[in-house]
């Protein structure tokens, strides 16, 4: 090898080393995160690297966020899922792929219990009390094991008993899925079963993108909410005991959390999208509810160490407090919810 050509081989070796190190970083789980919070308003966040952090203190009143999360997916039962355009080169956004990614999001948010359910499992779940339990349904149709479009259905009474339903895709309650893969339409007034009489859902107009934030709270920024599609979304003024967060167009909000008996229904607007999925993860992980009041939010940057802070404004709060700590802002990498009863 001539002297001047060592450089070429050295350059190739350096590139190979960069790729190998990158591969190790990608799959070697090299970054560590941790956090803590207590009822006195103290919190800490540790990051072995460097990210922005957000600490959100919320007063949830009498509501306790679910600690067990169930995810409905049954390929045999009828569902109403629309094909959506995805980014160039991206995998098609099917129901199972959406949920697979949601679970991965929720895992780094330290959600303690995540269980997949089929239609029979959902029936079993909804035969019990809903207290402390949440279920994610994005199938566009509720299976006939729990729903037939009447107020006596298991799905409806489960909510009233304290269950929480996180819903995305299609009009909530409109379709009933059957074991043979078909779907039928529920009688009119289906939205009222979940959101209260008079609830209005947005239609399927061509352009349902919202261009402004929901007013009255700062969760859009403090929970890094991104989905601005309000198709199938709830008209804020048409539901009582509700909280709207995210983006708004003509009174329809991208996310609405509404009281249902002792439970809650949370409707995410829009067709399937990655923004919607990330919002769903953030809302579930943050533990917010229909009566949430954001008390305080701290943001900053943590770099290769621990940041500690104290929420100062605890005097005015009067219910269950929850502290949601997360790292990374819009593209989060870690998060954890801490709940403190009143």
């Amino acid at each position, binding site marked *: 090898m001539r002297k001047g*050509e060592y450089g070429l081989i050295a350059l*190739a070796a350096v590139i190979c080393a960069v790729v*190998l190190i990158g591969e190790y*970083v990608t*799959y070697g789980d090299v970054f560590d995160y941790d956090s803590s919070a207590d009822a006195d308003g103290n919190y800490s966040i540790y990051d072995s690297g*460097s990210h922005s952090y957000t600490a959100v203190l919320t007063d949830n009143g009498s509501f306790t966020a679910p600690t067990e999360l169930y995810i409905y997916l049954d390929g045999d039962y009828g569902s109403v899922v629309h094909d959506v355009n995805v980014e160039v*080169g991206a995998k098609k956004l099917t129901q199972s792929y959406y949920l697979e990614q949601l679970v991965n999001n929720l895992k780094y948010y330290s959600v303690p219990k995540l269980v997949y359910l089929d239609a029979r499992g959902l029936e079993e779940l909804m035969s019990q009390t809903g207290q402390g339990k949440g279920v994610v349904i994005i199938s566009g149709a509720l299976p006939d094991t729990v729903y037939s479009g009447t107020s006596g259905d298991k799905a409806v009474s489960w909510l009233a008993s304290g269950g929480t339903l996180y819903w995305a895709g299609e009009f909530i309650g409109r379709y009933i899925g059957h074991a043979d893969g078909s779907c039928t339409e529920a009688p009119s007034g289906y939205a009222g079963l979940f959101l209260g009489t008079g609830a209005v859902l947005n239609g399927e107009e061509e352009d349902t993108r919202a261009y402004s934030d929901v007013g009255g709270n700062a969760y859009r920024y403090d929970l890094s909410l991104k989905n601005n599609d309000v198709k199938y979304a709830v008209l804020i003024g048409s539901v009582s005991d509700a909280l709207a967060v995210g983006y708004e167009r003509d009174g329809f909000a991208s996310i609405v959390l509404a009281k249902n008996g002792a439970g809650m229904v949370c409707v995410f607007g829009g067709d399937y999208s990655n923004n919607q999925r990330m919002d769903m993860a953030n809302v579930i992980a943050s533990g917010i509810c229909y009566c949430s009041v954001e008390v305080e939010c701290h943001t900053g940057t943590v770099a290769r160490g621990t940041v500690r802070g104290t929420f100062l404004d605890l005097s005015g709060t009067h219910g269950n407090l929850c502290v949601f700590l997360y790292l990374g802002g*819009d593209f989060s990498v870690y998060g954890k919810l801490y709940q403190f009863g009143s």
Partner: protein
Amino acid sequence: MFQTGLLSAGGRRNLVLCLLFAAVIGFLVRVLVGTVLNYGYDVHHWALVMSNISSGNGLYDITGYFYTPVWGYFLAFFDLLQQSFLTLGETAFRVTDALEFEGYEGYISANTTSLEYAFWVKLPLYLVDLLVAVLLYRLVLGYTQDCRKAAAAFVLWIFNPLVICAPAVQGMFDNVTVLLTLICYMCLQRRYYFTAGTMLALAVLLKLFPVFLLPLLVAYLMVKEGRGLRRTLPYLLSAAAGFLLVTFVVFLPQVLDGTLDMCFTFITARAGSGADAWHRFTGICTVLIYVGIALGSVVVAASYYAYAEGDLDGRLLTAVLVVLTLMFLYPPTPQYLVLLMPFLIAYVVIKDRSFRRPLAVISIGATGYILANGFSLLLSLACGTDLMSVDTVISLAHAYRPYWYVLYYGSAVVQYLGILWLACSEIRGRVMRIIPPKEWGKAIPGRRPQVRTAFIGVAIGENPLYKSR
């Protein structure tokens, strides 16, 4: 770094100083352009990929990364450096006031990145540009022994607007593909076949296009080592070992965790899994066209194998240019054309100055294409500085919207005309000539009798039958 041939000591010093000056200016131009103009759609994806890696989800567990893994590994390396030494804070965010952008034509997003993040994620790409310039200098010097020509190639690369804008504005990594391809090319010339194989594998797994050069590079190796499988097998095996080793190492994690199919969604998603029948149809057509290009590249390689003699390296440069031109006859997005640039520049400097015209047209067209998103490219600057408000950017973008078509389609047409001009220049007998069917099957004078044009149909370079006119 810069070999300076036969220049005097003073001349050498002046040349090195001039090139260093050009490198510094080129670097500063990139920093300036990359700071002012930022294509949030792509760059914010790099932030997403990094966050997916940082959250323990690798490249494919959460959507955001659509290529084969190599660029993801580069991003992971950058992520490690950022996490270890920098404090960037919030890297990406969604700008409510700019949500209207997403209703505009083109891939314009209200998502953008902080100026700091954009700078640090693009910085390695600027350094890659400098490395490519140095390699191009050495490549041309190797061909010509003329340091002035080598310096001309250096400058043409450094100040090419497409080469500046693809990484600086889009944050696109095609110049890394160029770097790897050039190293492979130069290693082949020097008979470092194992290293050449590793670099080609990385280049292909970074952005696929160099795969079309594979048959030609194999033909070059075989011709260089005396033709015939028996004579060339050890060298072929050496190159193949490098290629396969890298491929194995790159894909090992995906093989182990069962996400190998996700590595190819960039291809498979184009081949029929789109949302509607039209997308599926165009996707299948795209794949068929690329199959045709692959066949074309095999023909060029076979032609090289059959005819090349004497100046093998010179003919290789010509044949590489032919394959790349063939590849880009299927209209590319502008950043893909960065792969064409070093070889076209080398050809202009070494062989035929008249090719500078298509070079200029392609560069200008592709640059216009990149800049077609207009004032929306200023969003990061508006969010990160007081130089202008987000409202101003939105007003300007709104005013520009009706004219978007002009720059977008206009520059796309100019870009493609440049490619056609290049192809025509090649076909007009300067580089390549299609052999008429009546001459197929005729033996080539002075060559082994088994080499017949019937097998090939295309002659590359100044071969005995088809000299340049």
